[in-house]
């Protein structure tokens, strides 16, 4: 092609060619092909039945039973503010080094440590660890430590009140989710380095203006992680570290303002992240998955889908909670009931997170090891991996694919069972009587049974 063609004409020509010149499809058959051969209908039925059985069981068991399940016991005295500051400062230094690596290291997102640490170690590994164990982010966030040091050095300063409620948190969480789901190249090392640096600076600046409160009410990622932490088995109450059944903190503790809405948004966003990989969704967009034009072609539909999915979930959940209140003629205001019950969906979100990212974690986790062993492509082998070929062989045999599928399905089902138990225990706490609690939870329970079906359908659907 001649160099002097107008860019616009050039693009039109390419689009025309792309439309008429035969393409090729090399999307390969392995993992999802094997899943399609598994008796997924049977597994889906069993999973839905398990959640439904939990609902029935709760209606029959004595009122306090679910609440007792979520009891916790103290493990040890726990005061570690100084250590948390140190850990957060180290985390900040690591992040700074990773940003440098993002700008100066290898261009390959599977060789550069920044995208691997952000998307694999943090967004998959740390989020899941946070959800299983407890609030690791209080230690590992890269802001609170530097902020504390600065305040100590400067002798403190007046901070402004944050009057805008939960909306900054909602906005920053959705901005993060939008980048994750819709940006054409969220793993590109340059691009990610700039995004991470700017977001760190923005958050740090806001925390200077509004104080550390910004991290609890304005920084959506920290709020989402705080929501996940409340599913974890470890929690701090009255200066002691306590341990209990996953979700006990949601029942015992008091959620920070905005936590309820954030809880729903992490589920809505996680669910849409699954939907937008299905052939069904591409069909909605009128795209052939084997000629998928790439993320850059569907930025706006993806953002729109994410927003609509979240709005729909908030509306449906609110509707279920409202209907439950009506069924028992409760005088509780819907906003209060929403704040009370909505956090019970976080175990579902965690189950989805595990199910959705398990396969990519199994592959990219290997790349992360390789990259951390040789962060600047200097030929180093810091972790002593020796000869190491990343493999995806576990997607090629029925036995391993079945195990992977069952772990994913199990995470989804366990998440829903926990959510049903929590919602019931919260209802007993709110309305007292066991039978009334069960009745008030009937619409929400039906919703959760339906959502189990949806989650398991996602796992068994053809996707890419």
């Amino acid at each position, binding site marked *: 092609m001649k160099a002097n063609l107008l860019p616009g004409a050039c693009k039109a020509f390419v689009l025309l060619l792309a439309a008429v010149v035969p393409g090729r499809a090399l999307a390969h*058959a392995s993992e999802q092909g094997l899943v399609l051969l598994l008796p997924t209908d049977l597994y889906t039925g069993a999973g839905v039945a398990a959640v439904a059985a939990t609902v029935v069981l709760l209606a029959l068991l004595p009122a306090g039973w679910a609440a007792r399940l979520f009891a916790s016991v103290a493990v040890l005295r726990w005061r570690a503010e100084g250590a948390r500051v140190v850990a957060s400062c180290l985390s900040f230094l690591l992040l700074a080094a990773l940003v440098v690596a993002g700008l100066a290291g290898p261009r*390959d997102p599977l060789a550069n440590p920044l995208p691997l640490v952000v998307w694999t170690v943090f967004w998959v590994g740390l989020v899941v660890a946070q959800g299983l164990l407890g609030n690791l982010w209080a230690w590992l966030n890269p802001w609170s430590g530097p902020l504390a040091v600065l305040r100590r050095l400067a002798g403190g300063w007046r901070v402004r009140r944050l009057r805008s409620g939960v909306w900054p948190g909602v906005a920053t969480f959705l901005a993060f989710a939008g980048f994750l789901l819709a940006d054409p190249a969220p793993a590109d090392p340059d691009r990610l380095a700039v995004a991470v640096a700017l977001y760190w600076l923005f958050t740090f600046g806001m925390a200077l203006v509004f104080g550390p409160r910004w991290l609890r009410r304005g920084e959506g990622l920290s709020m989402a992680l705080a929501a996940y932490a409340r599913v974890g088995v470890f929690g701090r109450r009255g200066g002691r570290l306590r341990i209990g059944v996953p979700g006990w903190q949601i029942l015992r503790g008091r959620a920070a303002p905005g936590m309820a809405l954030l809880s729903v948004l992490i589920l809505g966003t996680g669910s849409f992240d699954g939907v937008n990989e299905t052939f069904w969704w591409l069909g909605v967009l009128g795209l052939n998955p084997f000629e998928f034009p790439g993320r850059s*072609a569907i930025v706006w539909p993806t953002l729109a889908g994410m927003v609509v999915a979240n709005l729909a979930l908030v509306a449906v959940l609110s509707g279920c909670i409202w209907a439950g209140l009506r069924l028992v003629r409760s005088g509780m205001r819907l906003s209060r009931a929403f704040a009370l019950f909505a956090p019970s969906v976080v175990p579902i979100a965690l189950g989805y997170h595990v199910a959705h990212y398990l396969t990519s974690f199994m592959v990219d986790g290997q790349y992360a090891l390789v990259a951390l062993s040789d962060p600047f492509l200097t030929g180093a082998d810091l972790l002593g991996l020796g000869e190491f*070929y990343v493999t995806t062989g576990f997607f090629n045999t029925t036995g391993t694919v079945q195990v992977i599928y069952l772990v994913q399905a199990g995470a989804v089902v366990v998440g829903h069972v926990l959510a049903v138990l929590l919602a019931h225990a919260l209802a007993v706490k709110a309305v007292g009587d066991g039978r009334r609690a069960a009745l008030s939870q009937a619409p929400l329970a039906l919703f959760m049974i339906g959502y189990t079906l949806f989650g398991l359908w996602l796992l068994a659907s053809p996707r890419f």
Partner: protein
Amino acid sequence: MTSNTTRRGALKTLAAGGGAAATLPLWARYTHAQSAEPIRIGFQVHRTGIGAAYGRWYDRTTQAAATLINEAGGINGRPVEIVAEDDGTDPRRGAEVVEKFANQHNCDIGFGTLFSHVVMGSAPRAGELQLPYFVVSEGHHVASGALNRWTLQPGITDVKSQVMSMAPWVLGNLGKKVTMVFPDYAFGHDHRDFFSAAVEANGGEIVGLVPIPPTETSFTRYFPQIPRETEVLYHVMVGPAVLTFVKELGEFFGPSAPAIFGFIDSLEAVALDSPGLDFLNDTYFWEGMPRYAQADQSEYDAFYREKVGVDDTGSSVSDPSDVSTYAHMFGCWETLYVIKDAMEAAGYSGPQDRQLLVEAVEAMTEFPQSREHPQGPKRFNGKTHQVFGQQYISRVNDGRLDVVHTTSIEDTMYPDEVDYTTTSF
């Protein structure tokens, strides 16, 4: 998938003689040694998106070849540096990646693109930037004349020559009356059009065409469209439902199936002992390069397998269930060696010699089978910028593929559709 070792190996070679310099990042190592500055090969790799499974093996093959080239002294005495950028299997990003190669990373060339729509999206930008762009895509788009003087495909044959070269053997050995089952979009239409034409040219007959919507996951209702008189069933389904397709095909035909011929694209990177595939026993496949080491394996194939880390069954040496994209990935290896030869022939010393490099490739004609060309001998057509080479037909025997026929290069040739040498740079 990147072999850490391989990459390390490449870098160790780069640093040979440099001693402590081995600990420095690449950009720092050559700041004082203009003559030893690496040849930068921008590797446009499908790291994410629908091409990622292929990208993994394209990367592994590329790194292995780069290591060898560096061990042997590099290109024109300069080390080779592979600058890998992910294009997300996304045409628009593909064009951006090409721009980065030219404007940010000071790459000498672009290389390695597989998916056709990414090639189509990227090649015009490579042309505008006058960046030699070596694709490894199999698409007919290069030889069809749709691209430009700067885009070349010297390391892998195109789908038109692959498909049409199958016809003489299929008609002569399996039957004259052919029904084609194919996904109903461009990829399937390529096969339909190229093979139909070749069948008619060779005295056969297409008795049935069964297009299947690409996202279909159940196929039983399409099979009654296969005419009873069918002697050969040609299939080229792709995607996650392939295993279901084969399973249902087996259930439909039982023991009385016609002869069956397919393209290994359907099962590339898929183990032949996957459930349902036992029906494919005694059927035939096109292979770009035989996945299983054959009884008469060349020393070149053995050498290539060893260096890429692939065993005699086409799987990773570190995990027998990690099946490679063996029929395609040799293209990266062979293309890098063509680049090396052409740069040496052109006396390439830097971006100012890019036009000389393209002309040097255009002047090439024969690549004998060798360690540099382990898939087989090749003939390059400088006018169409496309290489031609022998193709393989293999029979499935108890879970492995045995070659029963190797085409000649002549079987794969067709009249030129373009002469890029007459177009301007």
